[in-house]
């Protein structure tokens, strides 16, 4: 008898963003490990738009269903736009899991990740801690049209209300390339040398090694994500805390949930599977860096 085989569709937000590449590695690893465990074949079908585009994601889900995928994991660029696509997949017998960004009104059976508003709040809280609760901060936010980033901005602003000593200068957007991000930070610092803290809700500038041109420690910085290129800033002391999203787990856990559902017919205990942000600091950076040996695409 031939082995049972499953195809899992994986739809992330954008192809070029390295965090999703790590998710992909996680999914592929999960497919291998679970395949061995249950003696089945699992294939990961990666269908991610080149640039962020919710409509393309919806189309990808529909196409995956038609192409016979057995389960789909998706990180929703726009919850409203994806709700119907997810529902219709479910109706066609294809269970859907969401990771990173949820579509709460849809019939997805599980969501893995952290709430974007919570993520923003946590960034602000960590930043407030290292700044001693006072100072002028700027928010760096990437593409202004991305709803999830807007939610994080919202989170930062919410949390900032708790700290009367902290004023937010503005939210600065940039084209999502490391260089444009780094240039934006430079410009803002030129024009606002009184800024003493940066809340980066996407770590774009930290992919370059020349983004933060101040003496380490004079200005505090907390950023989301802790990719290998970003870790150097922790070591140099320019960045105090990186809040690592569990990007590898996005793929791994989603695949696990889906296989549990379709192969073992087992539902998760909780629809919301929360993946906490892991604070990475100078102290644990080396241990954390080891993870990337496993998480990077080979």
């Amino acid at each position, binding site marked *: 008898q031939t082995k049972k085989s499953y195809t899992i569709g994986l739809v992330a937000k954008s192809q070029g963003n390295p965090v999703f590449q790590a998710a992909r590695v996680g999914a592929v690893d999960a497919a291998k490990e679970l395949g061995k465990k249950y003696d089945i074949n699992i294939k990961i079908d990666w269908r991610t738009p080149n640039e*962020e585009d919710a*409509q393309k994601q919806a189309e990808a889900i529909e196409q995956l269903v038609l192409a016979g995928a057995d389960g789909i994991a998706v990180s929703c660029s726009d919850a409203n736009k994806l709700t*119907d696509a997810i529902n219709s997949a479910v109706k066609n017998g294809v269970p859907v899991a969401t990771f990173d960004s949820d579509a709460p009104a849809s019939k997805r059976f599980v969501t893995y990740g952290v709430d974007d508003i919570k993520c923003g709040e946590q960034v602000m809280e960590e930043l407030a801690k290292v700044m001693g609760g006072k100072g002028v901060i700027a928010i760096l936010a990437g593409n202004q049209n991305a709803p999830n980033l807007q939610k994080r901005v919202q989170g930062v602003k919410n949390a900032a209300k708790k700290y009367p000593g902290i004023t937010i200068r503005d939210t600065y957007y940039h084209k999502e390339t490391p260089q444009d991000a780094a240039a934006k930070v430079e410009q803002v610092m030129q024009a606002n040398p009184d800024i003493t803290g940066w809340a980066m809700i996407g770590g774009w500038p930290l992919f370059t090694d020349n983004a933060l041109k101040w003496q380490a420690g004079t200005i505090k910085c907390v950023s989301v994500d802790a990719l290998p290129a970003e870790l150097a800033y922790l070591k140099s002391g320019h960045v105090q805390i990186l809040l690592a999203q569990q990007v590898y787990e996005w793929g791994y856990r989603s695949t696990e949930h889906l296989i549990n559902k379709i192969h073992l017919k087992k539902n998760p205990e909780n629809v919301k599977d929360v993946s906490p942000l892991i604070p990475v600091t100078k102290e644990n950076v080396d241990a954390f860096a080891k993870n990337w040996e496993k998480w990077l695409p080979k």
Partner: protein
Amino acid sequence: MSANNSPATPVRSRRLRLQEGGLLVVILLLGVLLTVFGGSVKVPKFETNAEGERVRVFRTNESGDKEPVLVEKNKFLNAQNLAQVAKDTSFIAIMAVGATFVIISGGIDLSVGAIYALASVLGALVLQRCGPEGAHAGLSPWISVSLGMLACVGTAVLCGFLNGGMIVALRVHPFIITLGTMAILRGVAFVITKGQSIGGFPQAFRDLIRWEIGDGLSLVPLVVMIIVTIVGGIYLARLATGRRVYAIGGNELASKFSGIQVNRVKLSVYIISGLTAGIAALLSIGYYGGATSGDGQGYELNVIAAAVVGGASLAGGKGSALGALLGALVIQLITTGIVILQIDQNYSQIIMGIVVIVAVVLDQLNNLLAKRRLLSHSK
């Protein structure tokens, strides 16, 4: 004198038919390729139950478990998939028809993606108000749907008018004007939505656009696309105003000399381009149920690419509505093909780039052959 122009008519029309023939051949080729190499897929069988809902058919297998009944289908060549391809094509194709007008007139419209976003957002806001959780939830579905459509399409037409008006009044190259409005309109969309997604539309609206027949085929986008193409085609080929679009694209000065009101024609093509972006936006918010200011990012290039692959000449004076549709279809088939043939997504951009170039080269080759044939016939 009248004797020697009789052979001419068929010559011209034959060539015209052949012109889009090149693309049709490319599309057929892609279709055959996908049918043959795509293989087959097992999908659950559906039936309509007593309540009129489509539900899966189950059976009990040997081990006593309930198991969905599966049917085997060709992966590419089945009604669902074709409907899906048509739907996915429709948004770009509809806008490409409008872009073709602009391109024929010798202009360019980089703001279609931004118009699409702004129209989506404004339409969505109105619809949300009338939606189940909106302030005006009580409005009759007809009125609320009409209001939403009006807001969406009206905004788009207005944006087109703005483009055309500035191009005509300021006498600045359309590339610059629409590059400017591309930023402005998207900026406005962002300010309005604050970057948040807008959803929660009246069910009537969603049902209208997602209306399905038979085996879950939703054909509204397809039908709209065909109507837009036909109307656009008739406008360009059969109406006097259509001739004028070709004329100003061919030689603006000569058109002016022969008394064509060039400015009016220019204005009209940008309005049409806006209109088609509005129609596409309306379909998209209806079909997908949400709108953000980031919608349609980068679509301007896709739309222009579809028009140009469809035979529109960026130098002006050449192009057709049908071509735009076929151009969009070619591009969509590549995307679909990559999924169906299970090609690693990493290579998708490379393949897309190559196929676009190859399609245009093939199309051109076909035109060349047609001309050769014509030449040898006329010998």
